[in-house]
C-alpha cells in the first residue's frame, strides 16, 4: 500500500489511474503557476525596491494585450481541463451492462450490503477483482455518501431515491470505505473496509462463511418470497385474473400510462409503483393496487425490485 507520504494514494480500480493522471496534470500546473507568481513577485520586489531619490515610477500603459493573451492561454487550459475531466467523469459514472449488482442501504451509522447470492454484510464489502461492480444504494434516514479513496469513486446516498456507483477493482487487498456526507453524531464511525478478493477467493468466501439460512437467500429469492407473501402474484400473474400488468420483461422498457404518457420502468419507477401504486397507472388497468408504503422497508423494496428485474433476464437491454 502506498504510504500517505507518496504523492498518490493506492490505485486499486480501473478509473484510479485516469483520475490520477488529471490530478498530476493539475499538480504540475499548480506548481508551475505558484512558482511563477512567487518568482515574479520576489524578483519585482527586489529589482524594483524603493530607492531614495529615485524618480516616481511611470504610469502603466493602458494596453490590454497582456490581459488578453493571459486570458486566452488560460481559456485554452481550462477548456482542456473541462473536457478531460468530463470524459473521465462520464466514464466513471456510467456502469457497464454486465456489472454485478450489490445492494447498499445506508443508515445512521452503518452500511448494510447485500450480494446477488444473498450474502449480507455490514460495513465490510467483499468483492472480486477484475469484475465491474454496480452498487444500487439508498438510505433509510439522512444523506450519506459512499467513498472508496483507493477506487477514486464517491456517490451520495439519498433517502427515497436510488443512486448508483460502479467500479472495477484491479487488485486484491483491503481498502478503506468512508461515509463522506455528514450524517450525525457517529458520522466518522460510519465506514469500514472493502476487501477485494481474487474471483476464486470470492466464490469461496460466498460459500464458506455463509451463516444463517436467511443469508443464503438471494435478493431475488427474498423478493420472490415477499412477492408471494404480500400477495402480489394474485394480480401480477398471467395465470390469475390479470388485474395488474404482467411484470416479466417490464424492467428497463417503456411503459405506456393511463394518461397517455410514457415512462421507463427503472428502479425509481418500480419503487414508486410499489410504495404508492396510484401514482402512475399503466394504460388499460384500474388503480386497484393497495399502497405498500409503511409495509415494506428499504431492504425489502430493493429485494422486490431485484426480483422484478430478474423477470426481465440479464440481457434484456
Amino acid at each position: 500500500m502506498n504510504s500517505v507520504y507518496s504523492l498518490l494514494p493506492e490505485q486499486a480500480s480501473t478509473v484510479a489511474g485516469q483520475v490520477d493522471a488529471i490530478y498530476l496534470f493539475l499538480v504540475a500546473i499548480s506548481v508551475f503557476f505558484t512558482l511563477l507568481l512567487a518568482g515574479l513577485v520576489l524578483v519585482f520586489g527586489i529589482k524594483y525596491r524603493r530607492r531614495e531619490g529615485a524618480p516616481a515610477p511611470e504610469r502603466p500603459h493602458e494596453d490590454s494585450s497582456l490581459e488578453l493573451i493571459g486570458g486566452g492561454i488560460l481559456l485554452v487550459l481550462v477548456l482542456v481541463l473541462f473536457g478531460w475531466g468530463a470524459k473521465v467523469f462520464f466514464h466513471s459514472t456510467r456502469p457497464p451492462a454486465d456489472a454485478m449488482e450489490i445492494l447498499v442501504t445506508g443508515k445512521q451509522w452503518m452500511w448494510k450490503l447485500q450480494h446477488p447470492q444473498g450474502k449480507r454484510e455490514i460495513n465490510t464489502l467483499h468483492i472480486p477483482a477484475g469484475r465491474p461492480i454496480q452498487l444500487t444504494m439508498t438510505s433509510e434516514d439522512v444523506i450519506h455518501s459512499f467513498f472508496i479513496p483507493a477506487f477514486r469513486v464517491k456517490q451520495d446516498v439519498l433517502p427515497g431515491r436510488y443512486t448508483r456507483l460502479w467500479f472495477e477493482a484491479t487488485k486484491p487487498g483491503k481498502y478503506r470505505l468512508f461515509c463522506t456526507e455528514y450524517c450525525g453524531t457517529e458520522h466518522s464511525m460510519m465506514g469500514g473496509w472493502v476487501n477485494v478478493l481474487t474471483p476464486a477467493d470470492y466464490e469461496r468466501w460466498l460459500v464458506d462463511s455463509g451463516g444463517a439460512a436467511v443469508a443464503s437467500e438471494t435478493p431475488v429469492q427474498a423478493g420472490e418470497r415477499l412477492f408471494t407473501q404480500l400477495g402480489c402474484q394474485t394480480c401480477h400473474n398471467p395465470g390469475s385474473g390479470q388485474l395488474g400488468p404482467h411484470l416479466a420483461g417490464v424492467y428497463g422498457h417503456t411503459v405506456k400510462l393511463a394518461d397517455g404518457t410514457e415512462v421507463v420502468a427503472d428502479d425509481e419507477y418500480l419503487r414508486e409503483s410499489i410504495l404508492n401504486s396510484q401514482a402512475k397507472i399503466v394504460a388499460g388497468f384500474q388503480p386497484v393496487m393497495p399502497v405498500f408504503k409503511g409495509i415494506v422497508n428499504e431492504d425489502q423494496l430493493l429485494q422486490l425490485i431485484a426480483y422484478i428485474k430478474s423477470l426481465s433476464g440479464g440481457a434484456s437491454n
Partner: protein
Amino acid sequence: MSSHSNAHVAHHFENAEQQRQSAQLGMWIFLVTEVMFFGGLFAAYTIYRSLYPEAWVVGSHLLSIKLGGFNTAVLLASSLTMAMAVHAAQTDKQKASANWIILTMLLGFVFLGVKVVEYAGKIDHHLVPGPHFFVDPMAELAKLEAAGIQVGQHLRHAFEGANPNHIQLFYSLYFAMTGMHAVHMIIGAGIMLWLLVNTRKGVYSSQYFNPVEVSGLYWHFVDIVWIFLFPMLYLIGRH
C-alpha cells in the same frame, strides 16, 4: 450642522433631488432582494410542479377561485388607491392623500380577511400539512362530479394519479408562499398607518413625499407577487 434651504434634506445629502433619487434606488434594490426572496419559493414551486403535475392539479382544485379572484381584484384596486395616494401627495392634496392611504389600508385588510377565511377552510378540511393532513383525491373527484362539473379525461387522470403526499407538498408551498405574502401585506398595512400619521401631521408636500412614493413601490410589489401567485396556485389545470 450646515443649514440648507430645504428643511427636509437630511444633513448628509447635497440636495433634495439627490435624496429623492437615493430613496427610490434604495427601494428598488430592496425590491430586487424581495424578488429573489420570493424567487426561492417560486423555484421550489416550479420544480415540484414539474415533478408532480397531477398533485398540483388536484391541489389547485381544492382552492377557491372565487375567493382567490376576489382577492386579486381587491389587491389590484389597492394598487390603484396607492398610486392615487402618491399622486395626491405629489400634487399637494394632502387631505386626499390621507384618504387614499386609508382606503389602501382597508383594501389590504379586506384581502387579509379573505385570506383568514380561506385558511380557516383549509384547517377544517385537514389541508394543513403535518400529521393531520388528509386528502382523498378520488373522493374529491366524486365531489366535483356531484357538483355537476364536467370532468375531462386529463382531470380524471390527474385525480387518479395524484399522490396525497405530493398534494401535501403543494399545500406546504401554498402556505409558505401565501403566508410570506400575507406577512408582507401586514408589514405594508403598518407602513400605511405610519404614512397616514405623517400625512395628517403635514410632513409631506409636493417638495417632499419620498416616503409616500417608496412605500407605494413596496405596496405595488406585494401586489405583483399576488398577480403571479393567483394563477400559479389557483388556476392550474382547471380545464
